[in-house]
């Protein structure tokens, strides 16, 4: 099994006809993901590299049975696109777009919360989700990953690549790799994804890749101590980053003692979870825990 994206995924791409949308949706399709529709308002009825394009998400679902959306529209349209997918009834929405205003996301996340349905929103500002051998939705290079027992969740995109690569070098595959994104108001946080891995019988061990800033890693450690029955390995980027400087991700800013590397490492260790010093050590620890 895998989580969030699987063989059952029927993918719709909002912004399919844009250059980014076109390129990555094409790569996802080549990987074997069932790409069934694109949505670009005004281009309904056309065909984009063999995929039908619709004006609205509702039309696309009716015609194709799409059950998952990938949002690749520009930042100022992203919140609207997510809401459109939710209102049309989709339960899995993966938003790749970066630089979405935080208040837009605060509204979207709370709107989704108020709904009666259990909806999974991943992102924005994330690399997407890959379940090796099953489906790839987003921009993670599919060839890096291989099927296996590790569930990986990360705030950083390129660190997903680096750590999946390190795991693969040691012959360790993954059930699903989830990039939740580095924004201050993510659709899903670590705990949301840890719950999915806990419920997935094929995931035997979880790797959590965090960053300085915020307290999501600390809360994840506290949750895992009570609820996760599988081993958890943590790695946090930004140990030497100076306080008060924003390093690319809006989330990666340290103010005061909160959100520091030390606070995160202490939270993991005191709850009995191992912390790796660098991406290479993540794979070494996973290998040791599995032997």
């Amino acid at each position, binding site marked *: 099994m895998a989580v969030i994206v699987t063989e059952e995924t029927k993918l719709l791409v909002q912004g399919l006809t844009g250059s980014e949308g076109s390129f*990555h949706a094409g790569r996802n399709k080549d990987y074997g993901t069932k790409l069934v529709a694109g949505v670009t308002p005004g281009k309904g009825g056309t065909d984009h590299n063999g995929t039908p394009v619709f004006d609205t998400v509702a039309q696309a679902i009716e015609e194709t049975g799409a059950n998952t959306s990938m949002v690749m529209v520009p*930042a*100022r349209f992203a919140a609207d696109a997510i809401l459109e997918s939710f209102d049309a009834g989709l339960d899995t929405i993966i938003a790749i777009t970066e*630089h*979405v*205003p*935080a*208040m837009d996301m*605060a*509204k979207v*996340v*709370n*709107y989704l919360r*108020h709904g009666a349905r259990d909806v999974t929103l991943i992102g924005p500002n994330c*690399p997407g989700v890959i379940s090796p051998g099953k489906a790839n939705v987003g*921009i*993670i*290079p599919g060839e*890096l990953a291989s099927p296996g027992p590790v569930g990986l969740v*990360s*705030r*950083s*995109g*390129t*660190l997903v*690549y*680096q750590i999946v*690569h390190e795991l693969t070098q040691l012959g360790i595959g993954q059930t699903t790799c989830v990039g939740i994104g*580095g924004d*201050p*108001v993510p659709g899903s946080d670590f705990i949301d994804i840890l719950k999915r891995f806990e419920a997935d019988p094929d995931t035997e061990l979880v790797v959590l*890749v965090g*960053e*300085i800033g*915020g*307290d*999501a890693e600390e*809360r994840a450690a506290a949750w895992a101590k009570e609820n996760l029955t599988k081993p958890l390995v943590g790695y946090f*980027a*930004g*140990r*030497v*980053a*100076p*306080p*008060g*400087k*924003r*390093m*690319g*991700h*809006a*989330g*990666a800013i340290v103010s*005061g*003692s909160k959100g520091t590397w030390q606070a995160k490492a202490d939270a993991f260790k005191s709850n009995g979870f191992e912390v790796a*010093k*660098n*991406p*290479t050590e993540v794979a070494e620890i996973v290998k040791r825990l599995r032997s």
Partner: protein
Amino acid sequence: MDLFEYQGKELLRKFEVPVPEGRVASTPEEAAEAARFLGEKVVVKAQVQVGGRGKQGGVKVVSSPEEAQKAAADIFGITFTDQEGRGAQKAKRVLVERAGELTHEYYCSFLLDRTTRRYLAILSSEGGMDIEKVNEEHPELIAKVQIDPLLGFSDFHARELVFGGNIDVEARKETIAILPKLYRAFVELDASQIEINPLVMTGDGKVMALDAKVILDDSAAYRHPFFDELRSAHDIPEQEKKAKSLGLNLIKLDGDVGIIGNGAGLVMSTLDVVTDAGGSPANFLDVGGGANAEILSNSLQLIMENPEVKSVLINIFGGITRCDLVAEGIIDALARLDVKVPIVVRLDGTNAEQGRKMLADAPHPMLETAETMLGAAKTAVDLAHGKKG
């Protein structure tokens, strides 16, 4: 973007939040002029972005224009740092404000709470000090309310804050009136934080914002054209400005190993492993997703313009970014520039084989390649320390 106090107050004034009357001065003479205009007793405040500026001599109460001039001159001479002694900066401006008598100092803030993914408002009778400390020692004196972004700020929120925050009876009515104005400012400005510490009650019974720490969400700049103007008042290192104009995300640091990578997480991780290898990073530079040859070549040039740089580490894990284009950019920069420091390159991911071959086919005395991230970090640090790689 973190605003200066005077910028934050100018914005708050537009939302009818009471702030002391004041003027900004860039020279001691202007400070004297402002004091003359404002009347006898004024406070001269350094416009810097560090905590504890008062303890460092950045806030002075004076009683004449001459004293204001002297106070400003003194303040312009101070090098301010954060509590750990880092982030040295000087004030380019002072804010001269009419000083009044204060009877109470409160704390108030509105912020985006990552934990609950809602807005959070905080009010406390214990202002003028570190709120984290108050939170530890006297949590009963702090009121916090969560605000649903879709419902907004209700009257009961204001009441909960004022009564729960232990605000003095005589200040309650005015505080209840100010809170919705602060909320409106918070939302309409796309702020991630508005902190008023202290919110004060004056001797004549008025409540006003004596300080303002406003942080705006850069991602919302497209719908607030005035963000650019606010940003122009900030002192950004020349190298960072240049990087921004090239579309690169660079932060200058104090070390001697130049760093180039793709993706914020990987670059932060690269800073960590360079430090573990005994080195000291000279910068954070994220070329972003989809970097091409030109971006790489420009990045390399920019990094090497820093005279402190003794070696450069390029750590790329190609996803959207193609390693062949990265290699092309490196080869271009080596041919175009007078390269005096060694460059260590580690390529993995999309088209890495091809990129490595291109580098192998274009040998250069200053170019080294490495197989792994850790190996690359060690080589770059050894070379910065003058050891052969």
